[in-house]
Every structure is written in C-alpha cells, then in structure tokens.
C-alpha cells in the first residue's frame, strides 16, 4: 500500500522514533481545538529540522500523498485536521529560539516555539512579541503564521502578518525557500501568512520584537446593558483614541466567568467593558482620563482601574476564562468567530438576541468590541434531542448576519474545515477561483493540507507553454497522453 511504503521510506530520513503509526498513539492527533471533527491520521511524523520536513514533503510528492502540518493543535477551525490517507507533520520538536537580536528588534525561532515563549525570552530586556491569541501559552508560532492569529491587542498592534519579517518555508513540492518582507515584487510573505497550511509548511520564523510600552493602564467599566457599553466604545474610538484593547462581555458571559473563576465583576452588570491603554506614560494618563469620562457619560455605574500587573490580571481573568467558563453554565457550546463593522454591533447583537429567543438557544457574547470581532458562545444541552442542530443553526445564522452587515465569517480562528462551506456566501466563484490560482502556483498537486479553506478544490492543470518535455506520469508508464 502506498502509505505503508511511504512511511517506511520516511522512517529512513527521520531520527528514530520520529514516525508514529501505532493506532492508539495516532488517536492523540485526531483533532485540533475544534473537537467535533475527528480523523485519525494515516501516519504522524515528528521532524526536527527544515531539511527533514523537506525530505518528508518530497516523499509525499513522490507518492502523491497529502500532508497536513500541525503545531500545538489549538486551532478552532479544524485547520490541522489530519487525513486518513495522509501524513501529519507535527512541529512540536522544533522549539528552539535560534536568535534574539534586540538591536534589530527581531528574533528567529523554530515553528514549534510557543507564542508566549518568545515574549518570555525577551521580557527582561523590555521587549515583547505583540500578537497575543488567548491560547498564547500553548499555541505555536508556526500555527500563528498559518492562521494569521490576532488576539485582544491586535486592535492597536495588528496581527501576525504585521509582525513577521521573514519566513523559511518548505514549499508543497519540497523546496526550502525564504520569504522576506524586504523582497521586491509580490508580497509572498503576506500571502503566505494566514493561508492555513495550504501553501506550504513554515520551518523558521523571524518575528518583530516590540518595545514594551512605558505605561499600561486597564479599566473595567460596568454598564446596565450592552447598548451603553457599545455607546462607550463608539465614543472612545470616535474621540481619536486607539486603545490597545477594548473587550466586552454580556451578562451571560459574566455569569459564566463568575461561576468558573469568581472574577468578582460588579454585581448587576448587564455588560462589562475592559479598556486597556498603553504607550508613553503622559499619553496614557491623558487618554485614560478621557476614557473614564466617556464611560461615565455612557452610563457606566462602576469603574475600576488597574495600573499594577496583579490588578490588571484580576480584571482580565474573567475575560480570558470566558470560553472555558461557559462549560459551567452549559453542558455543551459552540464558539463562533465572526466580524462586523464596529458601528453595526448594536444591530447585530439585537439580531442575535432575536435568533436566540426564536430557537430557544442561549448565546453568551464575548467580543473584541474595538474591531467588531464577535465570539458568540452558543450554548446547548447535547443530551436534549435536536438541541445540537438548533445550536448549529443559530451559529450559522450569526455568520449570515456578519456577511449581511459587510463583515467576515472569521476574524481570527480561520476557515479550516469548519467554515469552508460559508466561503461561497462571502465570496463569488471568481473570487475563490482567483485565490486558488495562488494555491495552484504553490501547490499544483493539491497535497498541502487539502480540503481546507476552499469548498471546492480547483484542478490546477498545467500552465500553457510552461512545462516542456514528457509528463512524468507518461514517462513512468502510469498514464497515456492522447
């Protein structure tokens, strides 16, 4: 069998123990953070270098076997879902920080390094790595590159794509290539980041290090309802302030967080807003006074300020625990990720309320209010017949709302397998076909993480007049040309 033969040859190019075929061990890798999609991989490999990844990819090409890259497996869209007929390439053994270069404000790291480990390596020097997805303690930088991860602070500082200066990648046909922000011509680096593993595998990442801000101040504002909170957000942004983060939680999300971590948010709050400002001390001080005033004017009934790290952590505890916390108030839930223009937030939240009432499905709302990125948590009881389906329906309708309001079906979790079916609602066939031209350029055989992002894979075909000579399939006697 092709896969068996491939696995034998792969074992020959990897260190001992780097190939997993034992069915029990393979099951460890059957899903990522989106656990309701499960596929046991055909084989798992744990390479230690770009050369080893390139060798595995070349062998996959030789046998026409698909491959999927995986970091820590924390993704929430099934982007690292394996294939039974394919090889899962796990970067967990490639976790060295190769270089920290403060003078040039950059670090060079292997793809399996966790997001937070970069910050930890440079914090004592007054630097940090800006993108901070909430899984940052465990998620890998390679996965961040694949998903173009954001985080609570991307409102001011941008996403992974804005903080990666160069990448070493293994292309889907097994070449090791460096993509550099300073390269002239097409921004291939920018196109690669966020391509969800469909254009190749990251083997080395040069990240930009940011100087830690002089001052950070965090405010927790409690409102009676979400409309007041939304009004405060609009007034802050409208006033020309770009906070590092503005997060909002509704009453149900607050209740869940209280149950889980006893975050002690003001009692009776229908919504809480977390506003974080950072930058030069004098600027933060001035803007903070303005933010406090705006919150009071919008109806905030309690304000708490944190200037010290411990106080700040206390404010963030509730927000950061929110996803897991809903487990305390619901047996099962779906984490949704959609984006609307920030000004459409009030309308969309009202519509979500209606959907919720109509289908008898509770929805807890947690969102990055500053950039309109919603994370509705759709709660249901999986023991109740039909509840799962209703929750799926509500969850999908929320994405429809995002599209109707000119937003996006995903702000940071990616399309993966989970949302490829929604892509045709957001994009035309021509849009998707054009995107797939990029795929065909990088991966004409469609071996790199196939079945993700696009609902219908494109058959790439040959480029007219480009490849000369006899087709390899013809040459090997496996195909005839008419």
């Amino acid at each position, binding site marked *: 069998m092709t896969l068996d033969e491939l696995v034998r040859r792969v074992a020959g190019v990897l260190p001992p123990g780097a190939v997993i075929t034992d069915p029990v061990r393979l099951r460890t890798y059957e899903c990522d953070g989106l656990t309701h999609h499960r596929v046991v991989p055909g084989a798992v490999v744990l390479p230690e270098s770009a050369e080893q990844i390139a060798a595995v990819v070349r062998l996959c090409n030789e046998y026409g076997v698909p491959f999927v890259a995986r970091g820590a497996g924390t993704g929430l869209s099934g982007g690292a879902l394996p294939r039974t007929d394919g090889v899962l390439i796990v970067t967990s053994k490639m976790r060295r920080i190769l270089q920290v*270069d403060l*003078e*040039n*404000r950059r670090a060079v790291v292997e793809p399996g390094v966790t997001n937070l480990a970069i910050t930890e390596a440079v914090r004592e020097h007054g630097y940090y790595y800006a993108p901070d997805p909430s899984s940052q303690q465990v998620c890998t930088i390679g996965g961040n590159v694949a998903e173009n991860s*954001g985080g609570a602070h991307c409102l001011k500082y*941008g*996403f992974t794509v804005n903080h990666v200066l160069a990448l070493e990648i293994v*292309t889907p046909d097994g070449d090791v*290539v*460096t*993509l550099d922000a300073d390269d*002239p*011509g*097409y921004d*291939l680096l*920018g*196109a690669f980041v*966020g391509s969800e593993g469909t254009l190749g595998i990251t083997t080395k990442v040069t990240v930009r290090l940011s*100087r*830690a*801000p*002089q001052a950070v101040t965090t405010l927790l504002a409690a409102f009676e309802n979400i409309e007041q909170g939304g009004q405060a957000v609009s007034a802050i*942004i409208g006033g*020309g302030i770009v906070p590092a983060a503005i997060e909002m939680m509704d009453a149900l999300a607050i209740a869940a967080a209280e149950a889980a971590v006893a975050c002690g948010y003001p009692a009776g709050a229908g919504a809480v807003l977390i506003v974080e400002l950072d*930058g*030069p001390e*004098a*600027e933060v001080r001035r803007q903070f006074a303005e933010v406090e005033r705006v919150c009071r004017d919008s109806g905030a009934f309690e304000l708490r300020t944190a200037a010290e790290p411990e106080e700040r952590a206390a404010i963030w505890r509730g927000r950061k625990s929110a996803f897991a916390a809903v487990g305390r108030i619901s047996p099962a839930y779906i984490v949704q990720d959609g*984006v609307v*223009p*920030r*000004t459409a937030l009030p309308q969309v939240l009202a519509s979500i309320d209606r959907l919720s009432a109509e289908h008898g499905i509770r929805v807890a709302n947690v969102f990055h209010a500053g*950039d*309109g*990125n919603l994370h509705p948590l759709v709660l249901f009881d999986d023991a109740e017949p039909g509840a799962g389906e209703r929750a799926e329906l509500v969850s999908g309708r929320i994405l429809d709302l995002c599209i109707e309001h*000119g*937003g*996006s079906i*995903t*702000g*940071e979790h990616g*399309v993966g397998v989970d949302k490829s079916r929604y*892509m045709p609602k*957001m*994009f*035309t066939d*021509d*849009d998707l*076909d*054009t*995107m797939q031209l*990029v*795929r065909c*350029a*990088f991966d004409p055989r469609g071996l790199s993480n196939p079945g993700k*992002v696009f609902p219908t894979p494109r058959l790439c075909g040959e*480029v*007219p*007049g*480009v490849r000369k000579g006899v087709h390899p399939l013809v040459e090997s006697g496996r195909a005839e040309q008419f």
Partner: protein
Amino acid sequence: MDVPHENTPRPGAEEVLRGPGAEEVLRGPGAGGAMGGLSAKEALRATGVTIREAGSGDAVAGVMPRWVALPESTEEVAALMRVSAGHDLAVVPVGGGTRLHWGNPPERCDLLVDTCCLNEILEHASGDLVVRVQAGVTTESLAETLAARGQELALDVPLGGATVGGVLATAVAGPRRLRYGTARDLLIGVTVVLADGTVARSGGKVVKNVAGYDLGKLFTGSYGTLGIITEAVFRLHPIAPARRWITAELPAPRTAATGSEGSGSPMGPGTVEGSGFPVSPGAVGVALAASQAEPSAVELDWLAPSGVLTVSALVEGAATEGRAAAVRDLLGGMTGRPGTTGESGEWPVGSYGVAEGDKAPDWWGVLPGEEVLLELRVPPSGVDGALRAVARRGLPARVRGSLASAVLRIALPPETGGAELAGFVSAVREESGPLGGRLTVLAAPHEPAPQVDRWGPVGTLPLMRRVKERFDPDRRMSPGRLAGGI
C-alpha cells in the same frame, strides 16, 4: 457616499500622437483570436470606454503604447481586459504616472489603462475607520476627504499626484512606516481585474478578517504584472492632535581628503575612511526606535560622502511635549550637544545641535531625487556599514529615508552614466549584502540601457514566476516590468 474627485491628468498625456499602424487588425493567439472580425481598436471602442491614441506622455519606461483607455468602473476595466485577451494586447495599468519610469521597461505595451477616471471615494465609514476607494483616487484628494472627519490614511506617500492603485502596485511608503507599517499593512480589501477580465475581490471592509487568501498582499508591489487593481479598502487612523519634529545634525564623516570631519559642503571631495561617522547614525536610529517616547518616524537626510547628517524624529498624538523632550534629550545625549528649542519650527541650520518644532523639515517625506533613484534596505545594525558603502563610492549621493526602519532611498545625479551606476550598484550590493542589505534600483534612465541589474538577487523568483504564470499565462500584463523579466 459618492464623492467625485477631479484628478489632474498626467503631464503630456493630452498631447495626442497618431502613430502608424494604430488601425491595423491585430491577430489574437490562434484562429479567431480577433473578436468578431473587429480590429483591436474597434473592439476596444465597442466596450464604450473612452479610448484615445497614445501620446508622448504615455510612454512606460520609454515604451510607447498604442492606445490609452480611460475606464470609469471595474466593469469597464473587465470589458477592456476581455478585448485585450481576445486580441493579444499587452496591457499596462497607470495611475498618476508618477512612477511609470520605475521598474523595467515592458517587453511590449499595446494598451495603457489609465485609472484617472476611477476617481470616486466610494465609502468613508468614519465610525469604522475604514475607507473604500476606486484605484485612481489620488492620495491628496483622499487625504482631503478624510481630514474633513479628522482621519487619515497613514501612508505618507512620497510623491505628489500618486494614486491609490499606483501606491499599492509599487509598494511605496514614507516616514511613518515605523509606526503604521506600509501599504500592505493598511490595505484590508481589494478588487482586481485579471488579464482575462475576471473580477476578483479579497478581504473586505473590516480590519480583522482571515477568510481566504489575501490577494491585496499579493498585488502589493506587483507593478501591474498580475492584473489591475480597481478598488481598495484601507484602515484609517485618527489624525494626531499634535505633532512635534525633533531634528538634530550629526557631524559629517571623516573623509580621506580632509583626514578629519567633512566640510559639510556638498562639494566636499574624498571618501569616508575608517569607522566613518563621529556619531553613529545607526546607533541613533536604534536608540530612537527603542525609545518609550514612541516616535512615529525617524528619518535621515544626508548628502554623501561628506555632508552633515540630519536626523529628524516625529512624535505625534497626545502629550507630545513631554515625549518630544524625551527624544530631544536622547538625541542631545548621543550627539553630545544639548538641545535648543526652536520657535514654531525654526531650528538653527548649519550648526550642530538639536531643535524642535511643529513643522517638518522641508525634506521630510520627499524622495531624494527622481531620475536615478535606489532603495537600500538593511537591518538597523547594518545602517552604518551600508552608509559607508555608499560614501566610499565617492559619488555625490543624496541619502534619505527611514533610519529606524532602515529603508533608505539614494539619489544619484541625473547625469550618472550607465557604467558608473552599474559600478555603484554592484559595489554597494557587495558591501551591504553581508550586513543583510538589499539594494534595488527604483528608477534609472532606460536609454541608453545601462548594464544595471535593477533588482539584484531575488530568492523568491521561482515562486513569483509560478504565481505570474497562473495569473497571466499569456504574459500580457505589464510583461517584463518586474524582477527576472516577470
């Protein structure tokens, strides 16, 4: 919101020149290529788009097109592209025409698609800090509209009359790249028309969006070789309530001719010797970039090889006074000369010192030259070495650009000969390469063709070629304009 904008036509564009052969029937690839037996020109006219004969002002890096089309919508561009596909016409898009002389000359050019009439600001969603524009909108008219609501596209385009599409296609950025990034960082959605007339869109109207591939990134820096950008959506920033520029002069480098600090005169002969700079410009850039006063930009202006170096930092936003003072102290400490505060933008010119004001130096955000223009990128630690490499050539070179981001533009005198330029380029590449440097020739005279490798080694060339082959298999979009003949 529909706001029509008057854009100035490119100089010389109205000088109509009727060349022979304009009426000839062009054969498409293979039988029946010419659509319905119409000549290419008739077919172009049948689209309803305004078509004119090309004039002397329409040349692209010295190559004269036959016709110029003035479409007003994405659909009209698509119609033009379908006709061009049917008649095998080579197409070059043009915006303000400010950088038509950049890049390689196209291998051929039949149709110039002038985006001057794609000049509407389609939607300024100020509450969302987002703007959607047609590609032919000039950055000035966009700035004017946005400023009316206290917002800006933080791009500092260094060329007057440049259009949004042209800025994207050539990926130029100005001083505040340090804080806001470049065009690719501010672009959140794009509409493009491909060589076969396919209209494709990616991204959208929200800043945070990871659905699908980012075609906008791909088209940024594409020099028109993948298709035509017809619409763009940008994220905006509030205009800072205050701006302060802190400017310092660093002593000129020691040169072989004087054996001491340079004269500061542009006539100063000789080349830089030894360690070169009495005060390291690289160290100044690194220190300012790391300052918690958070300057938005740190720029350098220097007439190599022996002029005084001027460094200017911009602090903007709230509480600028205190932050400017911090930058001033830092600069004063490094240059060994305590700061003096100039009144309303005045600072002592010609004497070393540190000054501060609310006006930018007159060279701020302006390209150092036009005709022979190079771009040198290097990691900040390599700035001194790269500057020395420039100075050692002995040519009077105006060096200007971002010191903190280490993206410097170099202008050589217009009369610089081909061989001289080629020598300069290869020597600077050789010296700055080991420092991580990359030198690109943005503009240089095409006739007589100098022996200059404009792009230098490009490691991603094979991948770029594969992208080009997929997007434009017949090589009709600005063929040859980019590195490696792409």
